[in-house]
């Protein structure tokens, strides 16, 4: 269920914590496994992570459902995580989100037909002086305008 490569990554996290505290690595382990499975977790994957870290399945499930970065429903290959909190709101995030929805033909929370993109409204991403902004993958995109949004989204493959 967990690939060797994933195990290697998880092990490198386990090594950071004291002996017997391997469950500290659960957050990263879930991310690693999620990344290998279409950006999505399910019951069996969570159990597999729990087993690998020798913790109860429900404890891993608590973590997987508490934090926002885990997905339990289908998402796009790229997830546009659009901040809609106060600083971004003040600088026009809502209009940009509407623009993006129209452009992609999906509402927030949905996936484009080709499965390429999903849009999600998120709370503050800690880049308020670069508002409005969104995150795709590991990357932040700041000081967005309609043109910039178009350009970035058109470049997604």
């Amino acid at each position: 269920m967990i690939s060797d490569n994933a195990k290697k990554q998880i092990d490198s996290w386990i090594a950071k914590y004291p002996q017997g505290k391997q469950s500290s690595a659960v957050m990263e382990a879930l991310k690693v496994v999620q990344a290998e499975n279409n950006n999505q977790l399910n019951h069996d994957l969570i159990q597999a992570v729990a087993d690998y870290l020798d913790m109860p399945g429900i404890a891993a499930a608590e973590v997987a459902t508490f934090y926002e970065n885990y997905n339990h429903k289908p998402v796009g290959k790229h997830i546009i995580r659009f901040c809609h909190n106060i600083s971004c709101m003040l600088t026009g995030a809502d209009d940009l989100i509407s623009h993006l929805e129209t452009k992609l033909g999906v509402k927030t929370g949905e996936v484009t037909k080709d499965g390429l993109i999903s849009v999600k409204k998120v709370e503050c991403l800690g880049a308020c002086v670069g508002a409005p902004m969104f995150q795709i993958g590991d990357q932040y995109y700041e000081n967005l305008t309609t043109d910039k949004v178009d350009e970035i989204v058109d470049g997604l493959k």
Partner: protein
Amino acid sequence: MNEVCFKNIDKDQCWSLANYEATGGYSVWRKILKGEYTPEQIIAELKTSGLRGRGGAGFPTGLKWSFMPRNAPGQKYIVCNSDEGEPGTCKDRDILRFNPHAVIEGMAIGSFVMNATVGYNYIRGEFIEPFNRFEGALKEAYEAGLLGKDINDSGIDFDLYSHLGAGAYICGEETALLESIEGKKGQPRFKPPFPANVGLFGKPTTINNTESFASVPDIMLNGGQWFADLGVENSGGTKLFSVSGHVTSPANFEVSMGMPFKELLELAGGMRNGAKLKAVIPGGSSTPVLTAEVAMAMTMDYDGIDKAGSMLGAGSVIIMDDSTCMVEALTRLAHFYYDESCGQCTPCREGTGWLYRVLKRIMDGKGKADDIDLLLGVQEKIMGNTICALGDAAAMPVESFLRNFREEFEYYIEHGKSMVKG
């Protein structure tokens, strides 16, 4: 400007070890390794500096460090809080990106004071670029023999790791953060016991904010008095202010404590499109909102903002011009706390949802005459009754928005639409 955390910010590759060392970086740590400091000296210097915790609560760092039972047997930990998630706050991200070695050295110095041989920097999960920067700096520091076991034959051990979050504002609360490092949900612990006695993995632990740690090396390098003199009484040093919202050039500014708000606003290029200032949230979403008049008369230090009726918090200054609908702004903040409540304690779990739903209903044009009293009543019932300060943080904006901009709420309820936006 830019004298402490940002002092190298204009340099090319300002985050590199070479750049850091060129301006005295790691010289304090090297002295410690040579046995030239005692923990007491460091604590004394910190106390003189007037450094107060930059994570929001403003607790004097020197005093906090003196609480650690450094001589108690067993493992002790030092933890850096880089979970930055409070709306309006984005300074720690830049410290990690542009001056990661200051955080490492600050934590190393702390580890020596507290006799903690292991440290973790908890970085919010979305901060991949800052995380990579920090990891890069860690690698440099290890390779330079500045971290590890028995560093430079000093007999001092310090291993530092980063831990990544996964999207939960509450993990910024220090005990939720510890739970999270332990691989659990980020639910705050009840206190007592305090982390200084029972912290990470049940061991004594000191937690400070990124900016607090990053300020320590220069305080030690130049002396506590030097730092204190940068600021004003009761608010030593410089502080990073994240100025966002309706300004021409939003940015992080490292300026002396005590700077008049007016000047800070000018630094940010003044109001965007010359609009009129309407309101300011001076310390991040959890701090009370101020009217323009009050804000314009305020100075940017703990006492100055306190006098104005708010809090310095994390130094996150959110500027709102007169096109802002305050009902909409509060609703957005209420949604944030509703979304981020961890859910373990009753007033916060149930109360944040209640606040948000009432505000949402008002926004939907279905407000009722007694909704304002209801909102005030609910926030009062959350206030002070929760395990951690998220409850208070959710309550405070409601009270201050309604106090300062009540007529906008009354208008919205009565007319079913915004007084500002129509």
